[in-house]
């Protein structure tokens, strides 16, 4: 069923903080299995769109459906990578402890992670290349390693739809490549991966489709159709330095991984 219906649908979604609107009437349908980028300037509402999909911010209007159903019916099939700065990295837990948190929802109340969960956590850490820091306190990692811990935790959720909020922020090229490869593998397994992203060059390189957002949906569709100079001008009104970069990125074209 998830192969026939859309992975993620926003119907007329509006979000406001207080009286200030953050997103206006977003109508967006994302197919069931792809790498999908949400792209736009700072303060465009990219993260808010993600949080709206996850039920973390109240909708002023509209509805969101994931895998054809309301969020509450499919929570167990949704994985999430929050922004790295959203937590206190001095918290006294190890890398493995954090990854195990991805199994908590499946375990439910009171049940503790056992051998099955531990071996799953080890496997997820291995996938993101962090097996040798599994026992380290999370504060003693580099930014990119912390980001990969979050990715491993999302993998441990064994979801069908993954939401990632700026997973490449503060990440070096090698980590970025590694994260993108893991995400491409997820797509190959038939999952939907939705990524809030700021770098247009790597977006053009890795994503199948994107949505350009600036408080409203500017354009959505396959990368080559959406990242046009005209659309970019409408999204990044006046920010010419960005336009140059995009021009180059689009000219180079997407890469097929």
């Amino acid at each position: 069923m998830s192969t026939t219906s859309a992975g993620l649908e926003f119907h007329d979604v509006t979000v406001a903080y207080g009286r200030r609107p953050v997103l206006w009437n977003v109508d967006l349908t994302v197919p069931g299995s792809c790498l999908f980028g949400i792209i736009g300037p700072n303060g465009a509402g990219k993260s808010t769109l993600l949080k709206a999909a996850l039920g973390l911010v109240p909708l002023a209007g509209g509805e969101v459906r994931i895998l054809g159903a309301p969020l509450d019916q499919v929570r167990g099939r949704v994985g999430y990578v929050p922004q790295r700065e959203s937590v206190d990295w001095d918290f006294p837990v190890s890398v493995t402890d954090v990854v195990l948190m991805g199994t908590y929802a499946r375990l439910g109340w009171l049940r503790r992670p056992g051998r099955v969960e531990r071996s799953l956590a080890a496997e997820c850490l291995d996938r993101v290349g962090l097996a040798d820091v599994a026992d380290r306190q999370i504060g003693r990692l580099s930014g990119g390693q912390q980001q990969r811990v979050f990715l491993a935790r999302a993998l441990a959720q064994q979801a069908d739809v993954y939401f990632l909020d700026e997973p490449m922020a503060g990440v070096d090229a090698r980590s970025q490549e590694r994260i993108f490869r893991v995400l491409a593998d997820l797509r190959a397994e038939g999952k939907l991966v939705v990524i809030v992203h700021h770098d247009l060059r790597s977006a053009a390189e890795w994503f199948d489709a994107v949505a350009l957002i600036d408080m409203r949906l500017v354009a959505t569709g396959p990368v080559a159709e959406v990242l046009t100079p005209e659309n970019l001008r409408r999204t990044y009104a006046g920010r010419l330095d960005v336009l140059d970069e995009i021009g180059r990125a689009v000219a180079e074209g997407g890469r097929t991984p």
Partner: protein
Amino acid sequence: MILAAADPPFTAAWALPYNTLVVAAGVASVGFAAGVVGSFAVLRRRALAGDAAAHATLLGVGLAFLAGGGRRDLPLLLAGALAAAIAALGCLVLIGRWTRTRDDAATAIVLGVSFGAGITLLSGITARGVAGSAGLEQFILGHTAGLTATDARMLGGLSLLAVCLVIMFLKESTLVAFDPSFAAASGWPVTLIDYGLVVLVALMVVVGLPAAGAVLVTALVVIPPVTARQWTDRVGIMLPLAGLFGLVSALAGVAVSSVVPRMPTGPLVVIAASTLLTTSLLVAPRRGGLARWLSARRTVAAWAEGRLLEIALRLEGAGPFTREQILARAPGAAAASAFRRLVRGAALEPVVVRGGGHAWRLAARGRELAAERTRRLAVWTEVLEAAREDARGQLTIDVPSPESILGAARLKSIRESAAAARGGPGPT
């Protein structure tokens, strides 16, 4: 004098040792539970909210006293205190949700207002000499002398209950304390768990009232967890450790106050807890001030010595070198003392030896060390280029051997990928 000693409620002499024992056990479990529950207050950054709740308890004690018709019945008074503490926390939530007041201001307001009201009420009651009101002020700074064995058993029982609840919901509380938005996104009722934790904190504040008093009971809830955090990087170890520190502090306070007449227990508990804290802040491994100072010193020294050897190796191409020649190329105070260390160490393990007159030259050992350091730096540089994060996570300024830090296999794969990146346009 508001710190009047309570009349001991027991009269039979034979009851004394048993009663003392039970009270001690009760207070010990209160201290333990306060540390355990308090750990989550600290980790969830709710320490100040707990303080506001604590100050509000006095109002509850006073109202419960009046409602009970002037009976000094500890369960009744504590029930009033708990209601007041929860009400104060409720006010915090409401202020946060419906006004645009910031958290710290809201906390200060609730704390100040409820404490003021509580003090006014208690003073009013005692000033009028209401029958049975004599010991009420003891809730301000704490005094355990008046506790009966029954009271102590109740306090101990509630403490054990709180500890059991924390252990039962350890997984859920840790998740919510660490990453509430992830918890919410994966379907956990974050608000409910949060309220549960806050009510537990309120319960511990109330249970700790007889031991530490409204003003100081947060010290029992906040200081032991912060102390425990210095010694461990794991929640699972931090909790029992915080409990242990809380237990020791509470017992120490109660023991001293039972010897010194008219001494309230609260301040003594705080003194004991803060002694443990300052000691830990100083001497704890890794996080402690001493350890950090030493490691900073070692770091600077190791770097300076390495630099000097490197420079010496280069200078030696043109024969023996002088101290001035080296220091001219390595500015900074650390270099001069590093040079002294290199020269002084010469007796044991010759690194630098006399090269005639004021000149020096590298001994075989020194040449070896310098060459090894140069080699390591070259490898690290390569690793930095190929895998900046792996390198940055693990490279330290004393230039450790990359083979021992990264492992031979991993180093090999990193160097191969670096070579590939240099040789071609990159993997496609």
